[in-house]
Each structure stands twice: as C-alpha cells, then as structure tokens.
C-alpha cells in the first residue's frame, strides 16, 4: 500500500472530522466571497462614490471579515491537526520518513484548501445573488439587481485564501519536525496549557477597550483622531476592540474558571467540575472563539441597529412632520374610498404676527376645525377656548432657540395664548409648522383670503406611490407622507443596503461559527461523555452539563458584544444626529432572540452527537 492510498483510506475513515473541517472552510470562503462580490459590485460602488462614511464602513467590514475568516480557519485547522497527530505519530513509528509525512500533510492541507475554495466560490456566487435579491426585495429599493460575477472579487478571494491555506499547510508540514513522537501520541489527550490569569492582562484588556470606546465616541467633524487616522479610524477602533476582548477573555475567563474549579463547594456538586474543566481544557481556543463571536455579534448588532435605527427615524420623521398621508390646497380629488382612513376638508386663513424682532406668518383656523384635526390625530389634551383667547401651535418648537408665544395681536386687539402646543397639526410642507387657533367669531373677522385645504389619511401609506404621484400632478401645494418616506429611504439607500447586508452576513456567520466550533467539540467530547455514561451519570445531568458548556460559549460573548454594539451605536447615532435608543433596544432584543435560537439548535445537535457516541459505544 502506498502512502497515498493510506492517506486516502484514512480520509474515508475520518470522514466526520474532515467534513467538519471542510465545512468550516467552505463556509468561510462563501461568506468572504459574497462580501467581496458586494464590495466590487459597480452598482454599490457607484452609490458609495459619494460617501466617505460608507467607504470607511465597507473597508472596515472587509477587514473584520478577513480577520474573522483567517482566525476561524487557523483555529479549525489546528483543531483538525490535533486529531491527526496521533496518526502522524503512528506513521512515524512504523518507519515512514519524516519528509514523506511532512509532504503528505502539506499536500493534504493544500488539496482540502483548494477544493474548499472551488466549492466556496461557486456557493458564494449563488448565495450572494440570493442574499442580494432578498435584501433588495425587503428594502423595496430600485437598484438593478445586476450583480454579475465579479472577477475582482474572485481574484481577491483567491489571493486571501491561498495565503491562508499556504500558511496552514506549512504549519501542517512543520508539525512532524517540531514535535517529539511522544508529544504527538499524547496530543489529543493533553488539552491546552492553561495560561496564568494575570492581573496585567486584564488591565491591558480594559485599557484597550477604553481606548477603543474613547475613539469611537469622538465627534467625527472635530476630532483630531479622525484627522490623524482618516478613513483608517474604524479599523484602529476595531483592532483595539478585538485586542481588548481577547485579553479580557484570556485573563478573566481563566481566573473565574480556575477559581470555580478550585472551589470544592461548587465544583464537587454533580458535574460542575466537568463543565469548568471542559472549558479550561480548550481555553486558548475558547478565548479566540469567544473574541471572534464577540466581534461578530458587535458588528451584527451595530450594522443591524444602525439600519433599523435609520428606518425607524425615517418613519418617525415622516410621521412627525407629515401626519396626514396627503394634504393639498384646493378641491377634493377622487381617491379610492376603500383605502381612505379619514378625510377632512377645512378652510384656513393667513395672518402676520409681529414678534419681538420680526414678523411671522401664521396659519389661522377656527376652533371647530382644530377640534376635528386634533381628534383625528388622537390628541388627548384638547381644551375649550374661551372668548378672547387663542391657542398657538409650533411644530418646530425647540426650547433652545424658539420663542414661546404668550399673546397675539389680531386686528389691533391682543389675545392671550391659552395653550401652547409643540406638535404638528397638519403636514408642514403644505401649511408650515405654525398655526393659531381662534374662536369662530374672531375667525370670521379676520380679513384674509381663505384657502380650502384637504387632508387625507390612507391605509398602508408607504405603498401608495401611484396615488401620491397622481395627486402631486393635479394639485397645488401638495404634501405626501408616501413620497417623503420614499425619498428618505432612497437618499440613505447605499448605507442601508451595506448595513443590512453586513448584518445578515454576520448574523449567519456568528451562528455558523459557533455551530461548527461546538460540533467539533462534541466530536472530541464524545468519548468523555461515553465514560460518564458508563459510570452512571444520567442523561439529565449530562444534558445539563452540555447546556452549561455551550451556554458559556454563547452568553459571555453575547454580553460583551451587546456592550460593544451599544457603544458603536451611540457613535453612529451621533454621526447621523438621530435618536437610536428605541430601535436599538428593539434590535438588541431581536438579536438576542435569534441568538437564543442558535443556542437551542446547537445544544440539540451537541446532545445528539454525544448520545450517538455513547449509545454506539
């Protein structure tokens, strides 16, 4: 039997660990290639041309992705090689030359890499089209979905992965020269050396995170930092975040786990010590994976949160200044009655009011009209006007620079303002933000042209473009929530698009990376759980340990990722000067839920693998 046949036979026998490794690799390539396709897509870069911010975000994301796939593949590879060490030792023991074994390992790694590259690119091409089409549909954007196969993306992907695979292959080649035979035999049993939990590491970690947060929260327009680093600033921030998270996991996790394991009260109860030592056993790998997941989570939370926040604000802005779907001056127009929610027709006048330094134009309506409009908008604090009183409305009121109207002089008589409203009563585009409400009698006395105004609310206002366009063409002074919403979304199109895409990619990436990692561990841990089964540990206890073991890998990075994402979103919301609080909280909850689903799916598969392991013996 030649060495080659031996290797082939061996691959067939170890299909499980091979397929897990190849799966992880293909997956990384797929994600990276999909993103590269997007990055080099002309439609997107055409849109992105104008915006420095988007270029910065794209560059930073590509960097994060590259780092992520590189680390992930290196780690999967080292895990995979660890399983191979015993076999390598056996060949060596049987007298196969080191040179041949080294070549075999190099060759094997290279072949796996290249095959994965092929599969990954093909799948990536399909996936990118699918993801992009879905995304465009979801967002209702009218960008042509002509995302053709991008040569640049292919070349870029090939170069990046070729380098990674060359590196892993060389590492594989070196294994046989670097280790003593005895180490190779023990490789699988030994576990990773538990590093010392040093205070200095923890301090450095916290310091890195502090720097990253500080940089992230700088004001884009004024900060020296942005001037110095320019578009590289996001990368610097991410680098510090990664470093900080890693150091923190490295120190804190080791400290906590060692302390727990050393505490007999906790550890010697059921399988607690098993959970702790399982996590410690692979601590270096775990610190890396946890960092990776943290960063991925943070990226997902940030991009998703930003996109959702912008949407939310777009909608809120529209609602804030365009409470009626359509409003115009003049006669009623024919609108399909089935979509109309409410419809109000009223008259208004205009007066000029002298303020301290200048005069302002105010729309005047009578109290009955006010009552109708306010009721339609669901205002709760509608008062009755008494004789010689008026209400004032200022939709743009801002304490910092607006003047609060106390009284108005109309026809040379001064009327006190009985109540001041800082909300909109009608679409500001049609009637402006300022209005005065007067009693009927006074209204009649005002000498000014009367205009007839139509205000209509329809159902499903975001999708009434056809109606909106028709009305716009046939009416005066038209304002439309439909058009406003569409304009806002379109002007942010590229940003939203990149954000959603990143969010989606990273969401998938996070889930899969944890899944692959945990499945690889499950394969490794099978034997251990089989022993536990033999000495009479119940299924319930075992499942509890598994849930704990998987749970730590899930929870710890989620918490840190949420914090990172929160800080990043504060930065983003400052950049856009929008209030993100509500959408971000909603998005974080949604993310946590999706993440919880990943957790349950992973635990299920983990338990299944373990059970298969001990039932088959």
């Amino acid at each position, binding site marked *: 039997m030649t060495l080659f046949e031996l290797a082939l036979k061996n691959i067939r026998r170890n299909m499980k660990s091979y397929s897990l490794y190849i799966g992880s690799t293909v997956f990384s390539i797929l994600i990276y290639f999909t993103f590269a396709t997007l990055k080099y897509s002309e439609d997107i870069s055409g849109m992105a041309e104008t915006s420095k911010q988007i270029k910065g975000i794209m560059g930073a994301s590509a960097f994060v992705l590259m780092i992520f796939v590189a680390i992930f593949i290196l780690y999967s590879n080292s895990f995979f090689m660890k399983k191979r060490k015993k076999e390598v030792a056996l060949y060596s023991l049987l007298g196969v030359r080191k040179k041949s074994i080294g070549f075999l390992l190099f060759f094997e790694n290279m072949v796996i890499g290249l095959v994965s590259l092929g599969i990954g690119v093909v799948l990536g091409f399909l996936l990118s089209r699918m993801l992009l089409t879905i995304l465009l549909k979801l967002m209702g954007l009218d960008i042509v979905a002509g995302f053709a196969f991008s040569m640049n993306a292919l070349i870029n992907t090939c170069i990046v992965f070729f380098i990674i695979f060359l590196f892993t292959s060389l590492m594989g080649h070196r294994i046989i020269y670097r280790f003593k035979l005895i180490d190779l035999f023990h490789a699988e049993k030994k576990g990773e050396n538990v590093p010392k939990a040093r205070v200095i590491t923890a301090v450095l970690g916290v310091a890195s995170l502090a720097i990253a947060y500080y940089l992230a929260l700088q004001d884009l327009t004024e900060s020296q930092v942005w001037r110095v680093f320019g578009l590289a600033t996001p990368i610097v921030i991410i680098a510090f975040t990664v470093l900080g998270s890693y150091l923190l996991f490295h120190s804190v996790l080791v400290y906590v786990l060692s302390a727990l394991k050393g505490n007999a009260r906790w550890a010697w109860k*059921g399988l607690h010590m098993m959970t702790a030592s399982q996590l410690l056993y692979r601590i270096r790998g775990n610190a890396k994976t946890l960092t990776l997941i943290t960063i991925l989570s943070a990226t997902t939370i940030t991009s998703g949160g930003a996109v959702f926040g912008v949407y939310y604000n777009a909608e809120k802005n529209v609602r804030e200044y365009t409470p009626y779907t359509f409003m115009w001056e003049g006669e009623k127009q024919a609108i399909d009655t089935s979509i109309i929610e409410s419809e109000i027709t009223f008259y208004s006048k205009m007066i000029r009011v002298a303020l301290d330094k200048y005069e302002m134009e105010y729309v005047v309506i009578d109290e009955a009209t006010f009552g109708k409009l306010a009721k339609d908008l669901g205002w709760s604090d509608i008062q009755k006007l008494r004789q010689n009183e008026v209400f004032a409305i200022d939709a743009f009121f801002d304490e910092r620079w607006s003047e609060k109207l106390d009284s108005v002089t109309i026809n040379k008589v001064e009327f006190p303002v009985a109540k001041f409203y800082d909300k909109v009563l009608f679409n500001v585009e049609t009637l402006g933000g300022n209005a005065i409400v007067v009693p009927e009698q006074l209204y009649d006395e005002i000498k000014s042209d009367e205009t007839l105004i139509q205000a209509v609310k329809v159902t499903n206002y975001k999708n009434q473009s056809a109606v909106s366009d028709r009305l716009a063409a046939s009416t005066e002074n038209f304002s439309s929530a439909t058009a406003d919403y569409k304009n806002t979304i379109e002007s942010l199109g590229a940003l939203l698009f990149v954000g959603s895409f990143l969010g989606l990619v990273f969401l998938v990436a996070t889930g899969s990376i944890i899944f692959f990692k945990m499945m690889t561990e499950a394969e490794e841990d099978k034997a251990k759980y089989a022993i536990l089964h033999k000495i*009479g540990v119940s299924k319930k206890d075992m499942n509890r340990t598994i849930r704990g073991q998987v749970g730590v890998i899930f929870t710890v990075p989620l918490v840190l990722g949420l914090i990172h994402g929160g800080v990043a979103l504060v930065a983003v919301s400052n950049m856009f000067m929008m209030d993100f609080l509500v959408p971000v909280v909603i998005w974080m909850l949604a993310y946590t839920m999706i993440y919880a689903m990943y957790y349950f799916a992973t635990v299920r598969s983990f338990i299944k693998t373990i059970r298969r392991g001990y039932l088959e013996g």
Partner: protein
Amino acid sequence: MESLLLVKDVEKKYGKDANTFKALEHISFEIDHGEFVGIMGPSGAGKSTLLNVLATIDTPTTGDIYIGKDNIAKMKEEKLADFRRDHLGFIFQDYNLLDSLTVRENILLPLAIAKIKPEEIAKRVDEIAGTFGISDLLNKYPYQISGGQKQRTAASRALISNPKIIFADEPTGALDSKSATDLLESMSSLNEKHETTIMMVTHDAYAASFCRRILFIKDGRLSKEIFRGSKTRKEFFQMILDELAQMGGDVNDVI
C-alpha cells in the same frame, strides 16, 4: 438466600446480517449476595462482553438479567443510569479516565454525582488514595501518570462510593505484584467486611485465587465452574493452575 444476580440464557450478537458474530451464547448462572466471583478464559472468549452486559453498559441481544428484583435487560436507559450510579462500580480494562480532570477529580466524580457533601468527599478521597498509594498523584492529569497508576485511580473511583456490586475487568493487568496484592486485598476486605459482591475478569491465576468461585468461559459459552470452598488461598491457586493446565491449549493464553 435469594440470589443477587440472576443471568438467564443471555446471548449477545455483534454486527448485522451475514456479519453477525455471537460473542455470548446460552449463558445462565446465579451470583449470591456477598460473593467474590472470578471469570477466566482465553483472550476473545467474551469475558469483557459478559461483564459489560451484566454491568448494564451494554444490552444483551436476548435473555434476562435480574439484579435483585429488577430485570436490567429490560430497564429504561434513564433508570439504568441511576441504577449504575447508586449500586454499581466498575474498573475497566482500558481505565476510562477523563483526560480533562485531575486524578482527584476523577476519583471523586461518582460522589459528586451522588451529591455528597464536599467535606465528606475530601475525607473519602484521601482515605482511598492512601489505600492505593496514589496520594501524591492527586493533582496530576491522567496523561502524566503511568498505566498502573491509572489502573489504581480507576479502582479508587470504582470503590469510593461503596457500591453493592463491583465489576472489575482485569484490574491487576498493569500492576506490579505488590500493588496487585494491595488492590486484591482491599477488594477482599470490602467483600468480607461490607459484603460487597464482586465480579472480576482476570487472566492471572494469582489474582483469581482471591475469589471464592471461578467461572470459565470459552468461545462465548460457560465451560466450567470451580469453588474455593474451605480451601486456603494457596490451595485454591494450585487448583486454578491445574484447571488451566487441563484446559490444554489455552494455558499459554492464560498465563
């Protein structure tokens, strides 16, 4: 007195269809409370298989096994786990220690699972580690200790919970004669003082001579049974040697 372990016509097949291989055939016997039974036979005869089936780690293809009143051949998996935890102890041929736990943690695992108090656990670990001479190794990991030390660790783990029945698969295989004697003597004393029932597979006539009764297995069937009765250990040892010699060709295998 009612028997503790009743084995009725047990058969174990490995593999499927054309490839089936009968590792055990028509095995029936009884073991009473407090017995110390040895199982001997050539390599590949089915000793480990029998022990695994009795120890509920594996299931028989057909047949019944009663421990007390429970038919463990028909018991549900969850109940079996509890049963193992509460009543059985094992020393495996290939040790089955957990690589990620220290020697101490490996030994105390059954007590931890049974939710015994830490103070009590610490006391019992120290005691048993002293008995087996591994007190200095408690903080080491399995890959750092020798095969015999592993075997003693495995024995400590099996005995620490004072189980009703101990199943031992060649517990002295990797031990020097001094450690082997220590282990056998502590098993004997458990058997005598606590009336622990012990079933031990062994190739070694010296180890077998500590038993009260010996079952011989050949090609998956029970072939012979001898009793120590009122003989001394030395006399019994000679008797076993004679028996093995009589079995002829197998002697080389056995000694």
